């Protein structure tokens, strides 16, 4: 078996390590992988734990980090934590973008000029369509937050979940994000994955391990094959994509992931464009 560093350098193993900072959220999106919402178990990774994981990831040869949840910005001091992570490896922080007003908007200024990008969810240029999945006033809050963040020198990406049958919908959405200051290169579109709340709502496409990039994902419950792995349904954590319960030292799940990846045909994960 090779090392994670060699596998990342060779493109055999994706370079990004994901951290689930928490599972709670101010929204209850219809397709949420983790059944996140205001009342769920928080299952937080502490800032210290995230930073230590990032240091070990860098030592192992990983090249980037991602932070997701839940809504990470519900965790106090998340801007400082993200800045710390960005000082170790380039980092993308996923957020629903609805909390960036007042003190939180001021606090996030610490990310200006750092190697941290914020990836904000926006599913449609039509407010009613976007808000149907993500909750009332979501569209208005997001389109207000994006330029406010960009004005403060923060890199913003947009993630669209779900694919419309009408190509005009995507064109309108792209027109919108360009107008908000986000270029096409910082816009990702991915399908709803039928895990978590999407299963309950009968949404999305089935994705097996063969469809998912092998991005090492660390949570309070253990290490998983992908950020699409530590999903929750009916309050229970899915374990089908669990790698190890051990996450420290990071080499334990990294070597387990590598062992599985090395037995996998190349390129098989690209069909569903799950990124």
């Amino acid at each position, binding site marked *: 078996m090779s090392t994670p560093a060699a596998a990342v350098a060779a493109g055999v193993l994706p370079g990004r390590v994901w951290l689930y900072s928490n599972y709670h959220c101010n929204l209850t999106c219809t397709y949420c992988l983790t059944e996140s919402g205001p009342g769920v178990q928080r299952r937080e990774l502490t800032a210290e734990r995230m930073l230590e994981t990032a240091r070990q990831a860098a030592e192992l040869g990983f090249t980037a980090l991602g932070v997701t949840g839940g809504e990470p910005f519900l965790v106090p001091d998340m801007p400082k934590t993200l800045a710390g992570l960005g000082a170790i490896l380039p980092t993308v922080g996923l957020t629903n973008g609805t909390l960036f007003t007042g003190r939180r908007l001021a606090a996030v200024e610490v990310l200006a000029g750092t190697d941290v990008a914020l990836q904000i969810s926006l599913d449609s240029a039509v407010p009613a369509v976007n808000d149907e999945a993500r909750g009332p006033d979501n569209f208005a809050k997001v389109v207000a937050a994006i330029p406010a963040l960009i004005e403060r020198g923060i890199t913003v990406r947009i993630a669209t979940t779900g694919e419309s049958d009408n190509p005009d919908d995507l064109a309108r959405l792209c027109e919108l994000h360009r107008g908000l200051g986000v270029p096409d290169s910082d816009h990702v579109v991915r399908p709803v994955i039928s895990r978590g709340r999407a299963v309950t709502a009968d949404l999305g496409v089935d994705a097996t*391990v063969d469809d998912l990039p092998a991005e090492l994902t660390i949570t309070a419950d253990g290490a998983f*094959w992908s950020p699409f792995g530590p999903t929750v349904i009916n309050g229970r954590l*899915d*374990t*089908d*994509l*669990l*790698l*190890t*319960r*051990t996450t420290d030292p990071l080499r*334990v799940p990294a070597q*387990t992931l590598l*062992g*599985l990846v090395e037995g996998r045909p190349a390129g098989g994960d690209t069909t569903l464009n799950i990124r």
Partner: protein
Amino acid sequence: MLLDAAAAPLTARPYYQNGDPGPLVAALATVPELLEVSLPFLTTVLGASSLDARTKEIVIVRTSALLHCVYCVNSHSVVALDSGLTAAEVVALRDEPRAALGGEREDALLGWVDAVAGGNGPVADAVAARFGRSFADHEVVELTLLVGATMMLNRFCTALELPTSPAVIDRLTAAGLR
């Protein structure tokens, strides 16, 4: 606590390929890195080796009876029958006080098992000497590890209340061991 095939983690999936792997695997699968090392270990210690199956099952059933592990006693009573023990011999191993099996080698073995699994502190010199006269050094080592590994399993299965499978219960009933 017991994972079915749909919930089996990636590295545990091979254990489910031929159907239900049993409650021990289904429990260990919740911590897949432990399953990966403990199952090969247990399979090596409890499975086929240079020692004959009858001898090993005598150790496992007797140790499990001493530690009151219902799951292990049930499961290995069936394995013991398949390894050539009679139903009466299985009952003798499960009873307290146990009955002798009849041969010097196996009675010396049972003296050792009772001392290791049922006692505290060093094994009495006379018990050890009798055991040593019937078994080579490497057999002493292997059988002692077998007692220890069985004790670990006994406590694990008992504490987690692992259920005896219906197939095992059917076999025990048919053999008059229920």
